[in-house]
């Protein structure tokens, strides 16, 4: 059915089957999006990781297709983002339709001067393929396919794992275990940890089809279209001339009936007309939940990605949050493993990513409530908004067909040093993600942030660097404008490209204090 050719990655008999192996600093369970991204980020800081996955291939089905700018910037560190952009579909515009007419257009990246676009649509199997390839080329990373974690015993200073392979089971000792094992997280179950949240009952049909022709490179969302008059439809284009059509089916649909190819074809014919021809790639009927673990760090076991939190698909927040988790965790875990920071630094991973996760859940729940109103008055307001939208610009802004993933603000994180100077009128405040800008012949700002902290200085640099990399930028043009910079303005940027502190005038003592605070020392 799928035009994607699934590679099977080799299973290699693990040495531990024949006797105990070395204790590992970090073992990652799960090679989805979060796991390999985390392993690669750890490797940039010299920390080895063993990745265990229960099967031997990439994501079955396209699943996460909207790869956000911030994720691309992360993947760019290992040189795979350019490939994703080249293979995928770049899009920045969205269009919303009511019945048969367009009522609202939005542009997610209104200004030029960024290395990466707001979104690239690329099927999850390609993303994982590129990640796997890069992991396999990295000497510090060992990927073990068909290695399924079936048991674990936590200790004060590590975790003992039982891993099943085609050749039998073995045990493994690790100082840190990171569970990136997806929404059903066997690790979470083995530790008997709750996963509280909200269940949504509306059903959706995803139909990925290959349909050659000139399809627009934008996101389209319909409320009550003529071809599906009772509900909504979402359309996205993916690589290889594949379209994702997402039909809202309502609560009472029969999933078995809806999954039948002839019924999917009937819906598609109404949408694309009797002349159109397509092939099926992948389809699925789903409902969704929003859930979050009460804590992401349990002793020496850490949860990331869908294992720790899930959201509804509106807004493309699942896969992109998994990348942001990996980005937030990697530098902290690396510091702890190397003894550069106390383990308490990891509490900030939980704090910051829980705040992000709450924000993601809040946003995606609001979108869900707009798209699938849960009670009568909610539907009445939704429809009133839609009917005003054509004539009243304010109403267009209220239409919530999914607020698309942008980096969350970590305001109030204990790692941030609040602004001391009161004359900021712009630029990313502490707790916000840094903003890209072009550096003329020197490429892009985001490319110049290394795996450790960076001092970004505009114009004259002060004395002393507090032991971190200094990136000196001319105090002019877009970089200065985007950072509200004057000569002397300095930002302390974290390895995950968040701002930790900033000053109008660089001061070594202040920089050292901010750095100590940001690294939990």
């Amino acid at each position: 059915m799928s035009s994607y050719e699934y590679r099977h990655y080799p299973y290699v008999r693990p040495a531990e089957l024949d006797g105990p192996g070395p204790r590992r600093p970090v073992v990652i369970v799960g090679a989805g999006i979060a796991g390999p991204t985390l392993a690669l980020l750890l490797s940039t800081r010299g920390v080895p990781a063993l990745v265990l996955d229960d099967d031997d291939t990439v994501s079955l089905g396209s699943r996460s297709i909207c790869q956000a700018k911030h994720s691309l910037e992360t993947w760019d560190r290992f040189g795979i983002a350019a490939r994703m952009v080249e293979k995928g579909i770049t899009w920045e515009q969205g269009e919303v339709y009511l019945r048969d007419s367009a009522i609202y257009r939005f542009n997610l990246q209104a200004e030029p001067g960024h290395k990466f676009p707001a979104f690239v649509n690329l099927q999850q199997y390609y993303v994982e393929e590129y990640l796997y390839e890069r992991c396999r080329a990295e000497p510090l990373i060992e990927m073990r396919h068909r290695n399924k974690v079936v048991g674990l015993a936590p200790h004060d200073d590590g975790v003992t794992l039982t891993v099943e392979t085609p050749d039998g089971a073995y045990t493994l000792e690790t100082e840190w275990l990171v569970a990136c094992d997806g929404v059903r997280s066997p690790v979470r179950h083995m530790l008997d940890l709750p996963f509280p949240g909200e269940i949504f009952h509306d059903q959706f049909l995803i139909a990925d089809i290959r349909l050659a022709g000139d399809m627009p490179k934008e996101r389209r969302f319909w409320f009550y279209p003529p071809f599906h008059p009772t509900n909504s439809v979402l359309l996205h284009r993916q690589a290889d001339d594949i379209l994702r059509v997402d039909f809202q089916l309502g609560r009472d649909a029969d999933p078995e009936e809806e999954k039948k190819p002839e019924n999917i074809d009937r819906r598609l014919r109404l949408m694309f007309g009797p002349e159109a021809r397509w092939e099926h790639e992948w389809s699925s009927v789903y409902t969704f939940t929003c859930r979050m673990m009460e804590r992401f760090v349990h002793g020496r076991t850490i949860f990331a990605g869908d294992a720790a939190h899930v959201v509804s698909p509106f807004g493309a927040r699942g896969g992109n949050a998994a990348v942001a988790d990996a980005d937030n965790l990697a530098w902290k875990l690396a510091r702890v493993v190397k003894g550069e920071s106390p383990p308490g630094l990891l509490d900030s991973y939980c704090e910051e990513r829980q705040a992000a996760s709450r924000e993601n859940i809040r946003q995606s729940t609001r979108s869900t409530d707009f798209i699938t109103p849960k009670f009568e008055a909610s539907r009445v307001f939704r429809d009133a908004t839609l009917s005003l939208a054509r004539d009243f610009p304010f109403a267009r802004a209220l239409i919530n067909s999914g607020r698309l993933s942008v980096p969350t603000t970590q305001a109030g994180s204990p790692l941030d040093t609040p602004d001391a100077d009161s004359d900021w009128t712009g630029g990313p405040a502490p707790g916000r993600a840094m903003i890209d800008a072009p550096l003329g012949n020197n490429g892009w700002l985001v490319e110049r942030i290394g795996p450790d902290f960076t001092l970004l200085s505009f114009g004259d640099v002060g004395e002393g660097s507090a032991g971190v990399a200094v990136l000196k930028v001319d105090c002019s043009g877009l970089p200065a404008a985007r950072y509200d910079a004057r000569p002397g303005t300095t930002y302390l940027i974290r390895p995950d490209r968040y701002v930790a502190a900033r000053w109008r005038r660089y001061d070594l003592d202040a920089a050292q204090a901010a750095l100590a605070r940001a690294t939990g020392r």
Partner: protein
Amino acid sequence: MEGQLRRTLNLAKPDDIYNALVDAHKGLSDEECRAFDARLMLLLVNHIGDEAVILEALREAAL
């Protein structure tokens, strides 16, 4: 808790406006009334703009 929401008369011709409000619903079904009220509310809420006032009105309207 009394805040910014105006509690005294702010209309020059209160009877006219009150009757216009009621008359606008004449002949509408319950469903049409609800849709009409929702549109009216959205228009007014956006016009008022002052979020503290809107939130206070929401609390007061709940009685």
